[in-house]
């Protein structure tokens, strides 16, 4: 990997890592009586490992100018593997907390193993670790292909990837030590937030630099979605995390907001995290990989533009549907509800556009599990957005809020849409990236597909059932006008569904593990010389032959 960097890039890498080491050391010293110090030590350790890495390759010969004849894909390869590692970790912890809900006594009496600490490890692990790495990796791939411009340098993409994963590690280890801002999906504390801003702005600038070098006059729509993801997440992250640390040596901080403003800021963030992290970025993925894999252009390019702007405008205003029946002014709730219902239109336009793209290629969908992942993702995207728009209607929300229905909705989106489209995109790109004819085993892709689908269906149906039962039990009155059931009664009624969900989750996790194995075996198999899929081969010239770079 270091061999791919030019001399000056190696020097810059060392400077950055030394600076990071100094910061880590200062944190470790300043926060020695606090989890902050542990994080300092982790930062220091990461920087030292990085320094050793750079030094060990420092005197390797410089990369040849021929490298400019092909796209720079090593960061994408790395990102995909890391995404799969996080997928396995995040989903394993997800299944663990699922069992904890069925058997709450399984915490070994250890603070780190309590539900409250493990749950954010799950949510951050899957959303940021798995989803985020997959988005960054595929965005590097897509931005280069659609602009026909190589990444402008070799160092920045690595900075983004390593920096981002350092953030994820700080986040996950922090939760286990009890470090949290208590803002859902924004739990990491102030120092991690500042670091993420640096990484994220670098990512944004990198994307703009690639676009500035583009050879296509029009920017392909997938890039718009990726860019909206990057830009809006930056905005959300900065505003929602405005906080004052209690000292330079402590992990604890206090938000600048309070009361109902605080709640609104958090859910403006939270819902747009759904919109721009879990939706927009993955739509970008879909608009590239689905047409590519199906071998057909997107059904209606115009529809993709209109739904882009529809999603971007409407989502911004929908966050208040998380705060129905609260101290939030009624009109703000109504505003959020209205925009949520309107959101159905651009959402279904996107889902419909995807399915219409496949119309005429159903035989491919039948034979090709990779394409089937993408198709099922589009179906679940349509389903989840319909459900979401419905749940945002105030009286419906009075039934669904606080219940497992929300959890069912979340995972219809997370498993059915986010994870499925990601697996589809990964299975499509792994052979292209590593110049293999196909995946190591098409059968295992098929097995993964059915495990994932079965797991999702079991999970979602279990939660729909338990959610509705829970909601109804909480609002059933007896003749004397008091509640018919106690909370514990409803908890007992949930028990079988929690077991079912945990089993469904285990299917889904098993699928991901099989997928990871298949990917590793594909990488280990011999590269194909005569490849059927010319998608990733430079057309002419021995200079452009797919030479493996040292360190790959």
């Amino acid at each position, binding site marked *: 990997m270091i061999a791919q960097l030019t001399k000056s890039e190696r020097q810059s890498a060392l400077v950055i890592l030394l600076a990071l080491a100094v910061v880590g050391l200062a944190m470790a010293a300043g926060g020695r009586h606090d989890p902050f110090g542990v994080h300092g030590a982790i930062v220091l350790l990461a920087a030292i490992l990085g320094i050793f890495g750079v030094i060990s390759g420092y005197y390797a010969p410089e990369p040849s100018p021929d490298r*400019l*004849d*092909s*796209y720079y894909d090593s960061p994408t390869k790395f990102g995909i593997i890391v995404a799969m590692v996080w997928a396995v970790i995040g989903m394993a912890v997800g299944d663990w907390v699922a069992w904890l809900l069925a058997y709450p006594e399984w915490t070994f009496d250890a603070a780190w193993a309590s539900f409250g600490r493990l749950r954010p490890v799950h949510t951050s692990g899957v959303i940021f670790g798995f989803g985020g790495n997959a988005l960054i990796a595929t965005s590097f791939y897509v931005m*280069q*292909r*659609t602009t*026909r*411009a*190589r990444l402008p340098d070799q160092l920045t993409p690595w900075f983004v990837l390593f920096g981002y994963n350092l953030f994820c590690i700080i986040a996950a280890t922090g939760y286990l030590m009890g470090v949290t801002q208590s803002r859902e999906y924004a739990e990491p504390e102030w120092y991690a937030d500042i670091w993420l801003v640096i990484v994220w702005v670098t990512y944004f600038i990198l994307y703009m630099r690639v676009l500035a070098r583009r*050879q*296509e*006059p*029009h*920017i*392909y*729509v*997938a890039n718009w979605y990726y860019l909206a993801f990057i830009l809006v997440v930056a905005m959300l992250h900065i505003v929602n995390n405005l906080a004052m640390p209690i000292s330079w040596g402590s992990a604890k901080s206090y938000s600048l907001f309070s009361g109902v403003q605080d709640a609104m800021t958090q859910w403006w963030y939270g819902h747009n995290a759904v919109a721009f992290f879990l939706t927009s970025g993955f739509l970008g993925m879909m608009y*590239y990989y689905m*047409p*590519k894999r199906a*071998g*057909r*252009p*997107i059904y209606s*390019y*115009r529809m993709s*533009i*209109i739904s882009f*702007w529809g999603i971007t*405008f409407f989502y911004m205003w929908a966050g208040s549907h998380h705060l129905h029946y609260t101290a939030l*002014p009624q*009109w703000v709730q109504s*505003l959020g509800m209205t925009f949520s219902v309107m959101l159905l239109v651009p959402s279904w336009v996107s889902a419909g556009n995807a399915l219409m793209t496949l119309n005429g290629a159903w035989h491919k969908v039948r034979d090709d599990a990779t394409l089937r992942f993408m198709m099922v993702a589009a179906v679940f995207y349509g389903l989840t957005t319909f459900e979401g728009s419905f749940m945002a209607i105030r009286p419906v929300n009075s039934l669904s809020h606080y219940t497992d229905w929300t959890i069912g909705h979340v995972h219809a989106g997370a498993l059915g849409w986010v994870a499925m489209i990601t697996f589809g995109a990964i299975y499509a790109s792994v052979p292209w990236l590593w110049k293999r004819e196909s995946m190591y085993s098409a059968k295992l892709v098929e097995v993964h597909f059915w495990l994932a689908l079965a797991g999702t269906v079991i999970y979602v149906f279990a939660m729909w059932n338990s959610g509705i039962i829970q909601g109804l039990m909480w609002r059933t009155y007896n003749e004397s006008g008091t509640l018919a059931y106690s909370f514990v009664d409803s908890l007992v009624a949930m028990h079988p569904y929690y077991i079912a969900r945990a089993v469904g989750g285990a299917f889904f996790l098993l699928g991901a593990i099989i997928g990871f194995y298949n990917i590793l075996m594909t990488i280990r198999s011999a590269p194909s010389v005569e490849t059927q899929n*010319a*998608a*990733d*081969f*430079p*057309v002419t010239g021995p200079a*452009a032959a797919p030479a493996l770079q040292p360190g790959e």
Partner: protein
Amino acid sequence: MTITHDLLVWLSKSFGLFYLIGLSLIVLVYTYWPANQKPFEHAAQAILDDDDKPYRG
């Protein structure tokens, strides 16, 4: 000037409404502008090209 609740409500009910309608119109005009159809078609097709090499000027 202090920002009051009433002011925000007024803003969102007046300006808020019209700027969203305005933005929608701009998007629709852009999307259906005849001269834009060619680049759109080209972009949709171009990603299917198998020429997997960056451009070198």
